[in-house]
């Protein structure tokens, strides 16, 4: 204890034991921080009330070894709807932004105000080791060395606990270091290009470069009634460009306001499943270009993680380029054989724990989200072999510092072994089409094995329909003979 005190700033400022403790009754009379630091203004601390209410002095002014965020939701009754599987929409045993928004909408709808949410930022600080400088903002808001773990406990009719993304409760803030990695910075946008004055950024700043997009957006219902500023949805300091956000992260942008997105889509069969593979603009921005993307991931228990470059680098070799390992013939596109070989290799190196995930996302966005498709609900837009995203399927491969989008050729879904795409939802691609049938009659010599393999499960349709016609044919012959012999 003395050693810790000696290393702290109090010792340097000649604050000794006696200044805080009564020498005779060490435990009874202790002085708190406020005894000396009564009027501490914290002028430079943004949102001082929120910070000072949730934390005590030690959170920033001492070395913290262990810390976590504990969220407790206690509900009294009428909460039968709320169960772990309803809250954890993608079953990955982690609460993300979108799921937290959904939970809030669900609580509000089914319990009105009959529930309580308490957030506790708990940590173990040592009062004897006061540091000279307080922890910087990035300790919690960027690096998350402090409060890097969050856990939600629900107590009501159901009782459950689930780890949560700490960024839900401590938002990410911009930093100069991380700004350097953003697309804005990489394309040469300097701080003062946007921060023209101390006033907060408005759309006029964004229009300087993004006038075309703004022209589409400003007339939409969304712009007039909802998010009126570009920055309401887009964080210009975010490292990943929008196109590199996955479906779940994109959904979280919308769910900050549209918290009840799950309830509003109750009509949609397999609602949860749809939301784990789609983003909102897949349906709500019909003029956007959609694409199907595939990515490599791995499973730890129930949690699915997308494989990063570092993961792949550790499987192959340092600084390895991954694209040539997948696109063996170097034609800039992937066919089913290349994918199956690469995936088998990765899976072997990961001791069987690998899978290919997929989602349908917008690849080129049209900024009009005014379309409420409540009356249309056209499932066949996607659930058809004519679905637009079959024209643009990409495999996203992490490379050092960027992602490679490699186009996918042919009927990759139906042709690859089942074990490759274990979670893929069914759309139109594995249903036989006329062109598959016609293809059979125009086969060149030696093409049959490849044709047969690429058909995959489409064989079921071809055999099923073929047999139906064969049986109908015999029935007609039987009828004809019956008519002839009058039996």
């Amino acid at each position, binding site marked *: 204890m003395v050693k810790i005190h000696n290393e702290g700033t109090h010792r340097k400022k000649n604050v000794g034991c006696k200044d805080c403790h009564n020498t005779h009754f060490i435990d009874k009379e202790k002085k708190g921080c406020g005894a000396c630091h009564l009027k501490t203004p914290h002028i430079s601390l943004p949102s001082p009330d929120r910070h000072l209410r949730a934390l005590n002095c030690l959170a920033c002014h001492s070395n913290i070894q262990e810390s976590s965020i504990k969220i407790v939701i206690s509900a009294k009754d009428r909460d039968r709807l709320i169960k772990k599987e309803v809250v954890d929409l993608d079953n990955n045993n982690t609460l993300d932004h979108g799921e937290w928004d959904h939970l809030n909408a669900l609580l509000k709808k089914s319990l009105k105000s009959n529930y309580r949410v308490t957030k506790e930022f708990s940590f173990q600080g040592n009062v004897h080791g006061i540091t000279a400088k307080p922890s910087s903002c990035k300790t919690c808001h960027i690096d998350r060395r402090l409060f890097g773990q969050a856990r939600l406990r629900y107590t009501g009719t159901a009782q459950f606990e689930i780890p949560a993304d700490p960024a839900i409760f401590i938002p990410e803030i911009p930093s100069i270091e991380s700004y350097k990695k953003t697309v804005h910075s990489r394309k040469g946008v300097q701080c003062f290009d946007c921060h023209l004055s101390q006033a907060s950024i408005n759309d006029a700043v964004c229009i300087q470069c993004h006038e075309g997009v703004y022209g589409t957006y400003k007339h939409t219902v969304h712009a007039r009634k909802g998010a009126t500023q570009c920055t309401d949805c887009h964080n210009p300091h975010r490292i990943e460009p929008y196109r590199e956000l996955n479906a779940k992260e994109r959904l979280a942008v919308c769910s900050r306001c549209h918290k009840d997105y799950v309830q509003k889509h109750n009509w949609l069969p397999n609602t949860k499943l749809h939301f784990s593979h789609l983003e909102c603009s897949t349906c709500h921005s019909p003029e956007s270009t959609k694409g199907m993307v595939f990515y490599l991931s791995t499973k730890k228990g129930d949690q699915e993680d997308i494989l990063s470059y570092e993961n792949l680098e550790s499987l192959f070799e340092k600084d390895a380029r991954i694209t040539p390992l997948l696109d063996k013939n170097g034609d800039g596109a992937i066919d089913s054989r290349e994918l199956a070989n690469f995936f088998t290799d990765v899976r072997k190196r990961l001791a069987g724990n690998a899978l290919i995930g997929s989602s349908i996302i917008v690849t080129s966005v049209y900024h009009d989200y005014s379309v409420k498709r409540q009356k249309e609900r056209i499932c066949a837009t996607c*659930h058809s072999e004519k679905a637009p995203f079959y024209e643009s399927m990409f495999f996203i491969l992490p490379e050092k510092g960027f992602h490679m989008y490699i186009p996918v050729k042919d009927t990759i879904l139906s042709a690859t072994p089942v074990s490759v795409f274990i979670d*893929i939802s069914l759309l139109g691609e*594995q249903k036989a089409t006329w062109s598959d049938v016609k293809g059979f009659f125009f086969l060149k010599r030696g093409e049959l094995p490849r044709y047969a393999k690429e058909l995959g499960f489409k064989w079921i349709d071809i055999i*099923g329909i073929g047999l139906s016609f064969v049986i109908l044919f015999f029935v007609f012959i039987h009828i004809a003979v019956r008519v002839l012999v009058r*039996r």
Partner: protein
Amino acid sequence: MKKVFLHPIPIRIWHWINAGLIFFLIMSGIQLRFPAVSVFRYEQAALLHKIFGFVLTGSFFYWIIYYLITGGLAKHYMLHIRDAKGMVRMAFFYIFSMFKGARRPFTPSAAERFNPLQKVAYLSLMLILMPVIIVTGILFSDISYFLNIINFIGGVRTLDAIHVATGYAFILYIIVHLYTATLGYRVISHVRAMITGYGEEPEE
């Protein structure tokens, strides 16, 4: 022509409800598989397929419980060794001898309703195809909820393959069933039997 009582009323009601369910399930199923075939609106087809699927599950349990209670399962459906010969004879009759006006190799009675070919068809339909399509259908009804089981089977695509292949087997069965329904003593004999309960058979 004499009349033989064959089908008790609980079975007759079940048969026609089941027929309606299967008709709508096949129609909506074809649309789900091939969206270009537009019978209903697609989302209506999806909802109808799901609801009727659950009703079919209920209907299947009704059938199996009825036969378990009355003991008819063994009596009418159990295959015997002699049925092997019966099957050949029955097939020969349908393919050749019926055109020559030969006598039917099998006469249904209250004690034994179905000929050996019917037994094989109904047994495989009700005890293999029906449970398979019901179980895979229930797994489809909430893919996220049953994901662990689905992945154990081999993923959504395998599940789909099993469900659709069984669906085609149903279609093949229905074609044959509808046609053989006209092969009674008169063209409408079998259909009438399923409505009134009384089958029409030639006099001895």
